[in-house]
């Protein structure tokens, strides 16, 4: 609770500072220069959160996603003063299952089925594109611009890891069963905060943090006739991205 109050206080102070500055700038009303629309190329790190990054066999929503790279285009079109419509198009690679992950799954299935042994094979990676749009407001302080944005849109999942499981000593489940690779368009939402530094008239260096969440794709399972233990039907996505970018005003 104390943390929340502290964070809220800090945000309030920052906003107040920007607000005071904005009022100062507003004095010469007619000469006020508002932010220009911009587009930028960003790259950074995408960290899976919550269920997405969980490696818990017993959690059917755990995704075993890994920290990976993200990059893409991000920008905003100012529609009224410093109020803009922000957009982002980013690609994320959230890695693949490691040996430890597949071994944890194999151990889990061995225990769930009381099997003599279980072999798990994992292929493929988490690849997706975020296509998000939303209102953005920019606070200007000298050569710095703070952009706050709420976003919603689509997440295009190109692939998720696929697993095949072979049990030994279970007459009711002799066939290899699969958790198939998922590919889908799903809804996503999030928010971001970015700080841009103008190092020339039209160029800025930007640092941005973005949170993206989605119910994720449905997952198909094949040949899993005697269901015991882990059975995945949905893979929720939740990630926090830290990116550095270069933007161009236009």
């Amino acid at each position, binding site marked *: 609770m104390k943390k929340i109050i502290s964070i809220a206080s800090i945000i309030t102070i920052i906003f107040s500072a920007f607000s005071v500055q904005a009022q100062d700038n507003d004095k010469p009303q007619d000469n006020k220069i508002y932010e220009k629309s911009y*587009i*930028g*190329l960003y*790259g950074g790190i995408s960290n899976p959160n919550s269920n997405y990054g969980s490696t818990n066999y017993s959690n059917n929503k755990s995704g075993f996603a890994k920290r990976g*790279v993200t*990059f*893409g*285009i991000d920008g905003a079109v100012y529609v009224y003063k410093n109020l803009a419509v922000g957009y982002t198009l980013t*690609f994320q*690679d959230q890695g*693949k*299952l*490691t*040996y430890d992950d*597949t*071994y944890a*799954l*194999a*151990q889990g*299935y*061995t225990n769930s089925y*009381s*099997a*003599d*042994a*279980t*072999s*798990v*094979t*994992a*292929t*493929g*990676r988490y*690849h997706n594109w975020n296509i998000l749009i939303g209102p953005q407001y920019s606070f200007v302080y000298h050569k710095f611009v703070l952009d706050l944005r709420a976003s919603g849109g689509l997440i295009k999942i*190109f692939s998720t890891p696929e697993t095949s499981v072979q049990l*030994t*000593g*279970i*007459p009711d489940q002799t066939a290899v069963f699969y958790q198939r690779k998922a590919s889908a368009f799903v809804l996503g939402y999030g928010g971001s905060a970015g700080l841009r530094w103008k190092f020339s008239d039209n160029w800025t260096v930007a640092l941005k943090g973005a949170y993206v969440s989605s119910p994720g794709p449905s997952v198909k399972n094949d040949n899993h006739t005697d269901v015991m233990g882990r059975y995945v039907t949905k893979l929720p996505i939740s990630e926090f991205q830290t990116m550095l970018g270069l933007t*161009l005003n*236009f």
Partner: protein
Amino acid sequence: MNKLRLPAFLLLSALFAFAIQSCNKDAITATAYTTKAFQANINGSTWAPDTVNMFITYNPDTKMKTLSCVGTKSQKQVLFSVAVANAGDTQGFPLGTYTVDGSTVTAQYNTQQLSDGNYVFLPHGTIEPGAGSVTVTAVDSVKKQITGTFNFYSRSTIYDGDGNVVSITVDNITSGEFTNKSYQYINNQ
């Protein structure tokens, strides 16, 4: 020049996307074996029975103490028995390695087979004297738990009508182990 900035951004982004899409996608396989307290390897495959009965029986008349074990799962059954003379009426069992001799130390590998219209466990081959052993490494007579290992092989010989050998099949039961397996002590008095 200014007109080229935006297309350059997009092109660079597309190239980056292509590079990442082709990340390592090799398959990774891991195998986990059962950690059950009683398990063995039958013909190369791990086998952990879901039903295990272990008894130590003392016969005061003959002063024989017998360790007997039956494990069953998936149409397979492993049995062994070790009888020790003059072991005393205590709830433990002498530690040691006991070689299959066909009389005091026996072992058997059964499979479920159709017999007279019913599926029953029948011996799959015979285990000759010297074809294996049972080793008892620890006994906790208070908790009534026993630890040890076993291994043996069972030979099945098929003959034709003239008594000629058609084929010989050997079933290998290896790496058998029982770890802190609970047993029941019975005094046949």
